[in-house]
């Protein structure tokens, strides 16, 4: 990533969500991006996955120059290279767990038989083979997120992008999702996780700290975080 900028126009004001970021994410790493809300960490993740476009700058992922690709090519890029995991799971409520996992393969034009095999094996891997025919509303949050993880893997992408994957989960199921992501990383996939869950640090091979759309060092980040904490405490006292 080189001099990446993303500017939003909110009302009359320009908001620099990303104000010039230079980053290298190593293949096969478990990268955790930390930052307070509004720091631009989610925006960064979506840019990396070709789901959003930068205002300026370059993003190269696995030889693809994302800033030069059109909408259609970006769609194909996401299909082949990226698996997304979201904070709110984004499962389709009318489909069973099995159908949700198999859904991306429809767009990829994979034969029905193979879809069946892959979806069952992935559900098995996330430990939900006995829940395959349940709809999302019949599953717990942790189970839903595991379905989402299985879905992200179904087209066998080299890059897994997770946006606050534990944000809507209780401590235990959040932890099991973290372990699941770590396992995927050990299998050779590059995993990038955006979070402010501090426990994620123990799995990370790389840490990136974001403040106000800029990459900062851990020391700067901690200082700002503790300052924020003091502010909060001060507010609470008042």
């Amino acid at each position: 990533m080189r001099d990446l900028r993303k500017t939003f126009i909110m009302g009359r004001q320009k908001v620099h969500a990303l104000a010039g970021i230079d980053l290298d994410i190593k293949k096969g790493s478990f990268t955790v991006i930390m930052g307070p809300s509004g720091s631009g960490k989610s925006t960064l993740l979506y840019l990396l996955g070709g789901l959003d476009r930068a205002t300026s700058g370059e993003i190269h992922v696995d030889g693809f120059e994302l800033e030069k690709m059109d909408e259609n090519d970006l769609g194909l890029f996401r299909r082949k290279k990226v698996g997304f995991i979201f904070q709110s799971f984004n499962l389709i409520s009318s489909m069973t767990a099995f159908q949700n996992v198999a859904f991306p393969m429809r767009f990829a034009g994979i034969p029905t038989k193979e879809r069946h095999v892959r979806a069952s094996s992935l559900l098995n891997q996330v430990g939900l083979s006995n829940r395959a025919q349940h709809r999302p509303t019949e599953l717990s949050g942790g189970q839903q997120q595991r379905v989402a993880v299985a879905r992200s893997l179904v087209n066998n992408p080299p890059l897994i992008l997770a946006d606050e994957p534990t944000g809507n989960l209780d401590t235990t199921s959040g932890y099991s999702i973290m372990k699941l992501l770590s396992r995927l990383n050990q299998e050779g996939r590059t995993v990038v996780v955006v979070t402010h869950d501090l426990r994620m640090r123990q799995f990370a091979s790389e840490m990136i700290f974001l403040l106000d759309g800029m990459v900062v060092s851990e020391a700067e980040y901690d200082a700002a975080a503790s300052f924020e904490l003091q502010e909060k405490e001060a507010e609470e006292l008042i």
Partner: protein
Amino acid sequence: MHFWDFFSLIIENLNRRKGRVALTAIGVVIGTAAVVLLVSLATGLQKSATSNLWGINDLTRIEVYPNWGSGPMMMVNGVAESPSNIKMLTSAALTEIAAIDGVDKVIPRDYLNGSAMVKLGKLESWGNIMGVETASLEDLRYLVNEGTLELRRGTVIVGSWIPKNFYNPNMRPGEEPPEPPQMMDQRIKLVLSKWTEDGQEVKKTVTLQVAGTLQEMRNEADGTMYVSMTDLEAWNQWFNNGKRVNRNKDGYQNVIVQAVSPDVTVDVTNHINDLGFMAYSPQSTVEGINSFFVVLQIIFGGIGAIALLVAAIGIANTMTMAILERTREIGLMKAIGATNKDVLTIFLGEAAGIGFLGGLGGMLLGWGGSKVLNIVAMQFMAGQAEQGIVSNGISTVTPTWLLLFAIIFATLVGFLSGLYPALRAATLEPVMALKYE
């Protein structure tokens, strides 16, 4: 993404919202049913109007008469001079007509140039007697009821209404009029009469064998007795005090031209008129009537189309709502690798699917409705027939093309009304769509 995947996904999506899809489709059902029903009615009216006027065998028939000239007679040196555009149906003229493209047969006919009474036993009648220069009336596409259509000397073929014209000259008051006689194979007498210059009536009686009777054709043939041209020429010669008719100068009184097919009838008619003769074909009128009914069909179809337009707005509305509701789903589809084209195809497919379902329902409803209308019309007509009003019934006719057209058109309406919502869905920004609450 393969066709079958699109197809199954579209079906699943429609299935998810059965109630709303059904309600939206009802609009299309009503519109399509209106189109089918009204166009069926217009087509039925057209069929009954044209079949009431002429039998289908008449549509290749062209009647040609000599042109006696138009405009005032010119007086030159005290002698009446005919206008120059007189065209008689001479033998040469017939050759000219026969050479026109699309002419199948040229059949000259002459009327009896005097009065004749027909006698069958005690019964008498007056008939229209016509000589036809052909071996068989089949050439005129007449249909035989009994006997033969072949015209031989000394025989006569009678139209279907001729037997009804007989009366008993010696009928006493209060006596029932006679039943129409059986004429087939009977011998009838033809009493020709003329007046000499000093006022004396001269009669000549000829005997003819009835060799055939014609089916009812609802045209002039029903009231005509056909004889061979040779016989008629002999009688006309008698009427004319022994003078033979000169075919090269006076020509024939009337010629029937049969075109090879109804499609060319009007062209041939125009061509003969261009040659200077007076040609007339029922087909010209039929085509005039047909073009009126085409306009009627368009107007009726247009009324139905307004209903379809309203339905189209309904589909657009439903699809727009669906896209608002499914914004996150669209975002997700894009995140997991759907291209804009995939999203466009899915939503267009759903809109077209609603149109298709509505079209299918409307087609069945319209078709069923036209059947019901037929039954109602039949009963009404039966009631009228009891009161002595003859009609072959106004009913609806639903051509197959109309049913196919209705479904295709309704699907197209769905497709078009889904265009704008589907384009919106396809071009949604994935990040915005995923954040949509």
